[in-house]
């Protein structure tokens, strides 16, 4: 594998060998773009190429093999091999005998023969494969150059922090290397990334034999200036190895001495390699010195991180341990420089073997490097062409991958979802409070209405009005309510009727609703009145009584259809109604015509506020509304506990609606703030 040779270019500055694809001298760093060549392509001077360009174009135009099929004569017998023969026939450089032979072969179909046809087909196939290989190698080489230029840019960015250090504390060689070299971990990444671009039949790792053979060939060809095409794989591999080589130059003598004790274990280059020393390129030293700097500052903790970054880039087929060894090789020498005693550790011993290996590889350049003045080495690399830089999306992806790897295993704030107030705890608390209130109200609170409870003013007035009634006083009771409210009204009216009956008051019952006929039975039963008590139905409600109220003479003449039509004998009209409108009708349409008639009402809690102005104006002697005023008499038809439970439920539901609305607003504000 190492027999593949590359055409080496000589540096115009230091006259040292460089690979043909190198744009800068690996020894002195000078610009070699003028000597740039592509593998497998002969190096042509620029002027010569420019002069021969019209000829090449003319030749291409005249070449029948490159013409379009439409321009060719329709000859189905011709094959691509024949086209090549035609182009050759046109050339004037062919000898006469060969031209004649080919002309004859073209005229005769079987002149070529099966063997020649097969050979020609194989040659065509090989040419296609070779062209494809060249393109692949060229692309790989371009990628490597771009990555290397990126490394150089990153080195410039890192030069500022290193300048802050005091020059006295840092060795001169280290300052020089820091000024020139990029960080090695980036170079490691570069190596891994470019590995997969190799051709399948090319070597991916340098063996001892390969390195030895390469150096021998380099020395032998140094004088001859002969260039042979070298596969891009070997060139790229050498380029990948070069960053490790400067370690010796940068590590100075102590490193070489320290690593000399382990040299035997890891020496993979023959002993006579000292004669093949090649000057170490200064630029490649950066890759090692950056690791040294990092290891001095941050210790060896960054090594695993480098390995983490590298590991995803490896191909399955690639040898991972070797790569890890290469990575650690570039980091460990710093420890060997700072703490040479630490090499007793077995792990470090293994790691320290790498500088020895690198030392052996680069020993050949020590002598020549000593001869060269240090001032000749460029302090910084030249400006990188823009087309060699990495694309922005590639940089973004690389930085994203690095950040992901760094954050692996950590608990970051971004992973924590924004906690929204669920409100379940508040609702649960409200539900518990509701249950507790219900239980307390049903078990602890009094069942009947407490007798000492405060009464409303209308209820007190009604009680006083009832107390003023004497025996044989006539009281008209008007039943004007529906079955739905019968429980509430009967609970208030029944005790009062019972009390009036006890007082000897004459009660007359009148209903304005058809349903009042059967509702009156229930009321009479609760009031313990006689079952044969007459309850008259008055169609049209109070409208039916307006005429008699307006003209008492008509009432006096008598109308036996309704005994209660004449309202004048009654002292009190007790309206038991669930409609404030009907009560207002009685007060507004009947009461003005009969001044001696008093009106009182028993109504629901819902209708009571409407009656309050009539009580305030004196049109109503008093009224009792709802269960709150039920302590006028002895009520046994309703439970005071149930009444309180109902109020509590209503109160809790109302508060729950307010709280849920407030919670919704808070959540919305939280979301808006988050957005």
């Amino acid at each position, binding site marked *: 594998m190492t027999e593949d040779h590359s055409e080496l270019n000589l540096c115009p500055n230091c006259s040292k060998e460089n690979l043909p694809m190198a744009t800068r001298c690996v020894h002195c760093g000078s610009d070699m773009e003028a000597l740039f060549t592509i593998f497998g392509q002969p190096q042509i001077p620029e002027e010569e190429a420019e002069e021969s360009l019209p000829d090449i174009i003319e030749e291409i135009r005249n070449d029948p093999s490159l013409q379009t099929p439409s321009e060719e004569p329709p000859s189905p017998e011709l094959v691509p091999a024949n086209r090549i023969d035609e182009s050759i026939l046109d050339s004037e450089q062919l000898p006469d005998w060969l031209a004649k032979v080919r002309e004859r072969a073209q005229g005769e179909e079987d002149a070529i023969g099966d063997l020649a046809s097969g050979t020609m087909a194989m040659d065509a196939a090989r040419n296609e494969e070779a062209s494809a290989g060249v393109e692949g190698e060229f692309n790989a080489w371009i990628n490597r150059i771009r990555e290397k230029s990126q490394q150089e840019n990153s080195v410039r960015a890192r030069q500022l922090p290193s300048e802050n250090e005091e020059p006295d504390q840092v060795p001169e060689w280290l300052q020089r290397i820091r000024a020139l070299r990029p960080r090695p971990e980036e170079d490691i990444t570069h190596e891994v990334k470019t590995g997969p671009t190799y051709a399948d039949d090319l070597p991916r790792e340098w063996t001892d034999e390969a390195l030895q053979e390469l150096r021998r060939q380099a020395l032998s060809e140094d004088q001859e200036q002969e260039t042979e095409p070298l596969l891009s794989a070997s060139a790229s591999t050498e380029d990948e190895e070069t960053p490790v080589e400067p370690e010796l130059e940068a590590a100075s003598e102590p490193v070489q001495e320290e690593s000399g004790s382990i040299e035997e274990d890891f020496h993979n280059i023959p002993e006579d390699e000292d004669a093949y020393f090649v000057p170490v390129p200064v630029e490649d030293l950066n890759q090692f010195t950056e690791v040294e700097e990092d290891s001095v500052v941050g210790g060896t903790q960054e090594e695993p991180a480098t390995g983490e970054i590298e590991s995803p880039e490896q191909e399955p087929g690639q040898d991972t341990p070797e790569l890890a060894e290469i990575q650690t090789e570039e980091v460990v020498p710093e420890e060997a420089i700072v703490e040479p005693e630490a090499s007793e550790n077995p792990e470090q011993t293994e790691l320290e073997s790498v500088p020895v290996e690198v030392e052996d590889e680069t020993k050949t350049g020590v002598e020549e490097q000593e001869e060269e003045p240090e001032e000749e080495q460029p302090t910084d690399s030249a400006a990188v062409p823009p087309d060699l830089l990495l694309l922005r999306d590639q940089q973004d992806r690389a930085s994203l991958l690095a950040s992901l790897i760094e954050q692996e295993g950590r608990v970051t704030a971004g992973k924590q979802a924004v906690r929204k107030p669920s409100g379940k705890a508040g609702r649960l608390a409200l539900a518990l409070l509701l249950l507790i209130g219900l239980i307390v109200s049903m078990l602890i609170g009094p069942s009947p209405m*407490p007798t000492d*409870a*405060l009464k*409303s003013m209308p209820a007190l007035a009604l009680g006083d009005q009832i107390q003023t009634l004497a025996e044989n006083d006539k009281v008209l009771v008007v039943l004007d309510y*529906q*079955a*739905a*409210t*019968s*429980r509430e009204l009967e609970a208030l009216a029944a005790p009062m009727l019972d009390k009036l009956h006890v007082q000897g008051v004459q009660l007359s019952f009148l209903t304005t609703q058809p*349903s009042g*006929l*059967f*509702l009156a*039975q*229930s009321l009479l039963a609760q009031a313990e009145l006689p*079952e044969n008590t007459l309850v008259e*139905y008055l*169609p*049209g409600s109070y*409208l*039916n009584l*307006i*005429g*008699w109220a*307006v*003209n008492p*003479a*008509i009432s006096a003449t008598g109308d036996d259809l309704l005994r209660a039509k004449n309202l004048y004998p009654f002292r009190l009209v007790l309206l038991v109604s669930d409609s404030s409108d009907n009560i*207002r009708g009685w007060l507004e349409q009947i009461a003005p*015509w009969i001044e001696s008639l008093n009106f009182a009402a028993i109504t629901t809690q819902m209708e*009571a*506020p*409407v*009656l*309050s*102005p009539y009580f*305030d104006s004196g049109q109503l002697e008093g009224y009792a509304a709802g269960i*709150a005023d039920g302590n006028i008499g002895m009520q046994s038809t309703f439970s005071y506990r149930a009444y*309180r439970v*109902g*109020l*509590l*439920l*209503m*109160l809790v*539901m*109302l*508060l*729950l*609606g*307010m709280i*849920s*609305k407030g919670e*919704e*607003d808070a959540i919305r504000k939280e979301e808006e703030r988050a957005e």
Partner: protein
Amino acid sequence: MKRALPLIAGILSGLVVLAAMFFVPQSGGILAMVLNWVIIVAGVALLVAIASLVLTHLRFIARGKKGFLLSLVLVISFLATLMFGLIRGVDDPVFLKWVGAVIRPIETALLGLVALIMMSAAMKIFRERGWSALTVSFGVSAVIFLILGLGFLQNLNIPVLTEVIRLVETLPMIGARGLLIGIGIGLLMMAFRVLFGMEGSGND
């Protein structure tokens, strides 16, 4: 002419009742007669409404319209009650007991559902209407009067608190006065519209 006759009848009725109110002793008979007409017309209208209701549901049953079973229940219950009342009389205690035993629980249950709906509305009003002057005033007043309705504060017998409670309890009366004044003004405007032939119902 169709529009003029109801309009004239309405105007004359209003003027007669209004004049009768001012000339009470002399117009008492006329006022009673007019009001009796009103009661008779209202009774006839109720019969017409009952007949229309029964006929409509009979039509539903005959067409087999969706929900005709409910119509069937209505017609059957109506006919049974009518026949029972005609045979036994509206004053019969058994008849009244049976009717009351059916109507009372039904209407009480409906009123209980109204209470539940009001509770649900009290909970949703803030979500649906948001925070506005109407909803906030409603919620605050409801909470205050619900707490007062429990009677705990009244039983504390704190003089200052009792006065405050009495002051708070007068607030509904103020609102009721405003409501009654509004009702009176509305009735007055309605009467003027009828008297001057501006009421839309007379145009139909």
